[in-house]
């Protein structure tokens, strides 16, 4: 379970995240949406313990990330949007290293690593240095590393970027199966059709504040969009009217 309580992050006079409060219970896949610069990545990085909140609290599985970071992070797997990994480690060594950070090693980790590499078609590349991996392969390796220590909660920023259709499908199935087993995922994405098809609930942030929260039906009701899809709801809630000016932009 993830609990955010009045979570705030300020950089000088600029407020990136403004009093965000929400709870993502066990067994839920939560979609975190918003326009560019809305505060999604900052929020996720605070949840992952990479950034310290200016105010408010984050609890992972009931443990406060600021007060007891080690215990909280032991329950967490994080997949960033711009991942960099050690170029001079091989795929299997990277997974072993990540498992080691969670004090896990031995045959179980080896078995799990092989399974994950195989799932994402990386088995043949296990002994190749990461520097020779393509962007998509690196993304698959990072996703594998988030699962290798069997966390209770996964926080993921833009998981589909760089994935081929097969890997994207595998990831969707993996996420669904993972939450069905009682775990929690909080995912930010710009791919609205992905969020619509995968997420149990969706939160939309803008200007660092939560603008809407609920299931697809609840969001439709709050945006008064009838049976429209998430894109229309999103644009209405965030006030985006990009399509209006396209002709003018192209003619400019």
């Amino acid at each position, binding site marked *: 379970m993830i609990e955010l309580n009045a979570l705030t992050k300020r950089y000088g006079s600029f407020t990136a995240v403004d009093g965000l409060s929400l709870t993502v219970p066990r067994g839920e896949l939560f979609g975190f949406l918003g326009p560019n610069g809305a505060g999604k990545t900052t929020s996720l990085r605070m949840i992952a313990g990479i950034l310290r909140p200016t105010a408010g609290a984050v609890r992972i599985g009931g443990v406060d990330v600021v007060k007891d970071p*080690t215990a909280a992070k032991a329950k967490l797997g994080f997949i*960033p949007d711009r991942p960099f990994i050690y170029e*001079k*480690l091989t795929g299997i060594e990277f997974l072993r290293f990540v498992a080691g950070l969670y004090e896990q090693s031995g045959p179980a980790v080896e078995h799990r690593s092989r399974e994950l590499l195989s799932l994402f078609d990386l088995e043949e590349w296990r002994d*190749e*240095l990461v*520097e020779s991996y393509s962007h998509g392969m690196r993304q698959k390796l990072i996703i594998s590393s988030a699962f290798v220590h069997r966390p209770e909660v996964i926080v993921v920023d833009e998981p589909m970027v760089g994935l081929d259709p097969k890997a994207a499908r595998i990831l969707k199935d993996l996420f669904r199966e993972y939450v069905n087993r009682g775990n929690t995922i909080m995912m930010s994405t710009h791919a609205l059709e992905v969020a619509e098809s995968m997420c149990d609930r969706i939160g939309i942030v803008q200007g660092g504040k939560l603008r809407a929260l609920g299931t697809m039906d609840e969001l439709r009701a709050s945006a008064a969009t009838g049976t429209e899809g998430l894109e229309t709801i999103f644009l209405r809630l965030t006030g985006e009217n990009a399509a209006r000016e396209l002709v003018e932009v192209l003619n400019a």
Partner: protein
Amino acid sequence: MPDAVAARAGDELPNPALLHLLGPKWLTARARAMSGERGRGARFTLLAFLGFLFWAFIFGMLYRMLGYFRNATDIGALLAGKLLGLMLVSFMSILLLSNIITALSSFFLARDLDMLVAAPVDWLRLYGAKLLETLVHSSWMVVLLAVPMFSAYGVAYHGGWGYPLIVLATLVPFLIIPTVIGSALTLLLVNIFPARRTRDILSLIAVLAAAGLVLLFRVLRPERLARPEGFRSLMDFIVLLNGPTSPMLPSEWVQQAVMGWLRGPNDLLPFYLLWSTAAASIVLGALLHRALYARGYTKAQESAQTFARDGMMRRVIGALLTPFGVRRRELVLKELRLFFRDTTQWSQLILLAVLIVVYVFNIKYLPLTGEGLTFFIVNIVPFLNLVLAGFVLASIAARFIFPGVSLEGRTFWLLRSSPLSMHDLLWSKFWVGTLPLLALALLIVGSTNYLLKTSEFIMWVSLFSIVLLTFAIAGMAIGFGTLYPQFETENAAQIPTSFGGLLFMMASVAVIGGTIILEARPVYSFLSARIYNTETSAAEMWFGFGMAAALCVAATIIPIRVALHRLETIERG
């Protein structure tokens, strides 16, 4: 068709100007210079002060030497010219090597290349922009060194107001020529090997060349020239000065042009040679670029060796580290893998080994035997040798331990989102750096003391001090490296040249000096007691060595504590 598109169809093809291509570099440099970062003024003042001291030192040394030369009426000018020629040849070798390495980054590995190569940029303008970028990056340090050097010549020989213009007119083509040659060599190498493999090969060549030069210079034992008995006759010396020069080298042309202006006769030939060679090399370089760049750039996208397995390392070191827990074991294994799989890192160990050999060689040939050399002097030299050994260790720590935290910058997301404590991270960095440094320290001090045949007391004092100093230096390297991280720098070798690196070296020198000063009194008492058969004071011994130990322990622990606090609060969005 809309008007805008129709109008564009009739225009010429777009071709951005050279200055436009260089615009982002200039704007970045300007933004960096204008940034209102806290403490920037203090940093700038300190750097400017140290730079000024360095300039003043070089200028003073050269000016004094040139003063002596001017008094030697027959051979003075010959000597001054020879000295200038030697310095310029060194500059040229450095420039050539540095240009080869810099060109690899600017022409083939830079991050802006994808955008520039995909844009409708004319090949000649791309070449010009990248050549200029290579020239600036590889030559600024030589230019900084050249300023006090040429100034000393100008002042000593009354160069007049036209002298700076003469220097400028020779220095510009002198910098261009190695830039074009270096870039062309890199272009050829990249067409033969993949760029990443070329980088490995170049780092190895650079290190081996530097190591060879150092060894050669040392084995020649130039200090013998300073001994009057070394010369058989004045004629030998003059023959050496008039010996074959290198008339085909640009360094020789610069020397002839500058000395011609200062001492006469004025000759325009060196200027013609410099400028025509620079112009011709640019033309040839550009033609080579047109013929080979596209193919080389494609090859640069290929990667080098990618397969790696470390069964032995994992088994042996893994087993040794098992008592420290899985997390620390994996951290240490990771550190070792990253180091030994990166040619740019481990190849510097070769240079290190050569420097150690030179160091021991120097000690071996110290003139510590003969008349007038007392027991006191023979024993005090090894004690002072500690200062030098400490400085060597500080330089090694600056290169290998100081960048440790900076190099984690881009993987900070992983470390910070895991349950790894920053204490464990610093712990692994500290021990992975300290243990090899300690082995090296004991080897240097033990072997040099053995060669110097020191007394048992001095041997133990040296070993005691160097162990303490090693821990202090490693602690400070971790501490300052964390307090002044360079998270965006990809090249580990550049990190120690930062402001934090400078502060670390200054702090190291202070701690080494402090330790030696604190130990000086008890050592002096002991040696005096041995010479004059008097008693040594136990209290004096305990106080001196105790305070030195306390200083080193504090220098080990306090920087790591401060670094730990800093690391826990660092935020990388």
